[in-house]
């Protein structure tokens, strides 16, 4: 079979395969059965706040994976926020930080799909089996709500100690004290440890803090936990409980409901330092609303036990830190598609094949105004220095490296300059592809020398035009989301590219180039 005949077949097979894959995956999403005692839930954070200026920071804590709970899909949607480099899982909290780009109202929705199991069946990523000296000191320290040094705490501890001779379980006694002796208070009941112990009444937070303070005063490391009780609810309040280090592991205690050393399976830990789940700095009017919805059996759930190959295709199971970058990478082939379209169907000429795509990619990370400013400045300064360098008659590789060094210095000083005029850009804003810029400067210079400046400008204009189109595609968030859900959709991309690779029609620019072949007008001399 020759190439011309084979092409539509190959493209057709790819499209069919892609459709079958996507279809199967949509279908299995509704078909997976869970084992008994297992359930799927969707926890949603809806966050609103206002900022007076750009640069306010929003921090979201993400649920921990534990033996009974696993986040299998996570999606964060926001409009005007810029994700910072996501923090690696820390001891206290897994957090996403986002920075506002402009002043005004800000909205964010975060969705976590959670798989709960009554039997501890998941292997937790971070099961702590030892405590560093630093962490130990941290979990013995007092603070504003947990007044370890206060008289009420130390005296209460002394009296409980006296009642409990050494072989008895002191932590258990302390817990029973907080559970039974400190009663649940009214709305304005004390929320700090000393207050709750003094008045023998406290809010749930106050009672938990009382237990932490007593433990810490007894030199037993203890920490506040913040999280949720997963049950269907339109409006969920964060819960506080306590974990106490028993020398080998952390044991949970919940003084409000009296759970000791074992929590119900639906307690979901989100923070391990008692902090708020959603925090804003330099912003105001923070409203966070949490809700939980029970999900029908879905993908990813049954997979967490049996590592099936199909799970490889499901990218949503990956840690949230990777989502942003992975969806961008998945958009890159669309940049290739745009480039292929412009080169083979339109006939636009550019500097280098993928230069426009790579420039566009760097602009996605940058604020486009800063990006264009830096880009134009670097390009013009690069060209000026390149023409000076020409007089030194340097060999090619050292000369290119000099230009690269100048490009780097130029970008660095652009950042410094922008900061000087109080327009501090994010570090990513200037993450321009420096090697690509260097090569563009070199090619522009050579083309203008060897051909002509107008031709070089024509190539530059073509490069910029294709880069703009690539940028629009790369910024297309919906496409990124779909590709992230169904990466196999790129089989369609390959099919389109294969068909384009066999396009033998005229390029759009050729209609102009060969316009003199139009039926003869009177001005054209006859052919002999």
């Amino acid at each position, binding site marked *: 079979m020759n*190439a011309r005949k084979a092409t539509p077949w190959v493209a057709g097979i790819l499209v069919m395969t892609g459709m079958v894959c996507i279809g199967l995956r949509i279908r299995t999403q509704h078909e997976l059965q869970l084992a008994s005692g297992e359930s799927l839930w969707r926890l949603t954070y809806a966050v609103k706040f206002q900022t007076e200026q750009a640069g306010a920071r929003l921090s979201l804590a993400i649920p921990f994976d534990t033996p009974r709970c696993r986040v299998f899909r996570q999606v964060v949607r926001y409009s005007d926020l810029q994700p910072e480099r996501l923090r690696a899982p820390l001891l206290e909290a897994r957090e996403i930080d986002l920075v506002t780009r402009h002043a005004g109202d800000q909205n964010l929705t975060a969705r976590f799909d959670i798989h709960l199991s009554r039997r501890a069946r998941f292997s937790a990523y971070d099961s702590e089996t030892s405590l560093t000296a630093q962490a130990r000191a941290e979990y013995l320290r007092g603070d504003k709500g947990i007044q370890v040094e206060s008289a009420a705490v130390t005296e209460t501890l002394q009296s409980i100690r006296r009642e409990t001779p050494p072989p008895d379980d002191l932590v258990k006694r302390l817990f029973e004290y907080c559970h039974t002796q400190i009663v649940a208070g009214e709305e304005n009941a004390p929320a700090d440890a000393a207050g709750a112990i003094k008045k023998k009444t406290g809010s749930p937070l106050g009672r938990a803090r009382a237990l932490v303070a007593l433990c810490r005063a007894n030199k037993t490391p203890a920490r506040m936990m913040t999280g949720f009780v997963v049950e269907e609810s339109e409006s969920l309040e964060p819960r506080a409980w306590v974990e106490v280090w028993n020398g080998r592991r952390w044991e949970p205690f919940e003084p409000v409901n009296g759970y000791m050393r074992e929590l119900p399976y639906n307690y979901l830990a989100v923070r391990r330092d008692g902090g708020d789940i959603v925090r804003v700095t330099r912003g105001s009017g923070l409203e966070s609303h949490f809700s939980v919805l029970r999900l029908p059996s879905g993908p990813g759930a049954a997979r967490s036990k049996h590592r099936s190959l199909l799970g490889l295709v499901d990218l949503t199971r990956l840690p949230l830190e990777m989502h942003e970058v992975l969806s961008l990478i998945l958009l890159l082939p669309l940049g290739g598609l745009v480039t292929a379209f412009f080169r*083979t169907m339109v*006939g636009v000429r550019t500097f280098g094949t993928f230069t426009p795509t790579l420039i566009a990619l760097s602009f996605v990370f940058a604020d486009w105004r800063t990006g264009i400013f830096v880009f134009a400045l670097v390009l013009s300064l690069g060209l000026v220095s390149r023409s000076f360098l020409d007089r030194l*008659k340097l*060999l*090619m*590789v050292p000369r290119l490296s000099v230009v690269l060094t100048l490009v780097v210095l130029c970008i660095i000083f652009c950042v410094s300059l922008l900061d000087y005029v109080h327009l501090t850009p994010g570090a990513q804003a200037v993450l321009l592809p420096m090697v690509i810029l260097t090569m563009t400067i070199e090619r522009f210079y*050579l083309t203008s020398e*060897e*051909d*002509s400046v107008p*031709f070089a400008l024509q190539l530059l204009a073509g490069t910029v035009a294709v880069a703009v189109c690539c940028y629009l595609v790369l910024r297309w968030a919906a496409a990124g989301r779909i590709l992230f859900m169904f990466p196999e959709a790129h089989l369609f991309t390959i099919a389109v590219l294969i068909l384009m*690779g*066999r*396009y*033998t*029609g*005229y*390029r759009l620019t*050729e*209609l*102009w*180039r*060969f*316009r*003199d*072949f*139009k*039926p003869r007008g009177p*001005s*054209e*001399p006859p*052919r*002999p």
Partner: protein
Amino acid sequence: MTSLLKMPASPAELRARGVLGINRRNADFVLPANPRSHYPRVDDKVLTKRICESRGIPVPETFAVIECQGDLRRFSDLVRERAQFVIKPAHGSEGRGIVVVAEHDHETFRTSGGELHSLADMCYHISTVLSGLYSLAGQHDQAIVEQRIVRHAVFERVAVGGTPDIRVILYRCVPVMAMVRLPTRESRGRANLHQGAVAAAVNLRTGETFGGVCKDHFITEHPDTGATIDGLRIPFWDKLLEAAQDLAAALELGYVGVDFVLDAAVGPVILEANARPGLAIQVANRCGLQHRLDFLDTQPPEALAPARRAELVAALSEMK
């Protein structure tokens, strides 16, 4: 100027005239007819020249091939006995990196364009050639020092500042279309169409020029000299076509463009061959390539035998 205002052609109009587009050229002719493994034979001019020499096809005499920076010290000795010579990159394209030395006294070198260069300048130029500045993929290159071609008298009034070259496109070893490219002041003596050189079509059968085109517009006179570019008879035309066919067969490339220059003494010599020859030749000929290529595709293999090609060439030259 009127043509600037002219509307673009429609695909149907171009198709009717048999105009070959770049996509079709690549997909239907270059990719199937030219095996990638044979590309070095045309991309490396040292290799092209060696193939020509082994077949007795005339090429400019090679004085030296400079392969490494160390050879630069010998450059002065290499050219001591040569009054005139040309330096060109072995992997160059579109005439880039070519320096034509018209006279020199071992210290100062005067180019055909009248510029003066010191020995150090010349050595620097050669070292940029060696470092791959002009080569297609930027890989390490060689510099060829070769005989300078003396322009044939027939082109005296229609070439400014350089030597015209003659391009013949061959498909399945049969010449299908030809043109001559005449340098102008705007093209700075280079025979490059997109830099403003003039192209005139050549009648395949007779070797006589007709028509003309400059920057994709029809013209009949040389823009600098005003001399007509119509009706020039290229000497040794049959010899030239024969050499082109021999080279195409030797290169084993089905779709190839061969570039000649006419030497006043020797006649046609081959400068280089191109596995992806440009499409401007169609504008110069005011005729599309597609119909001619399709015609050859319908010929049985025995009709393409060397002895019968004259008939085919005659038939092709009549096609519009």
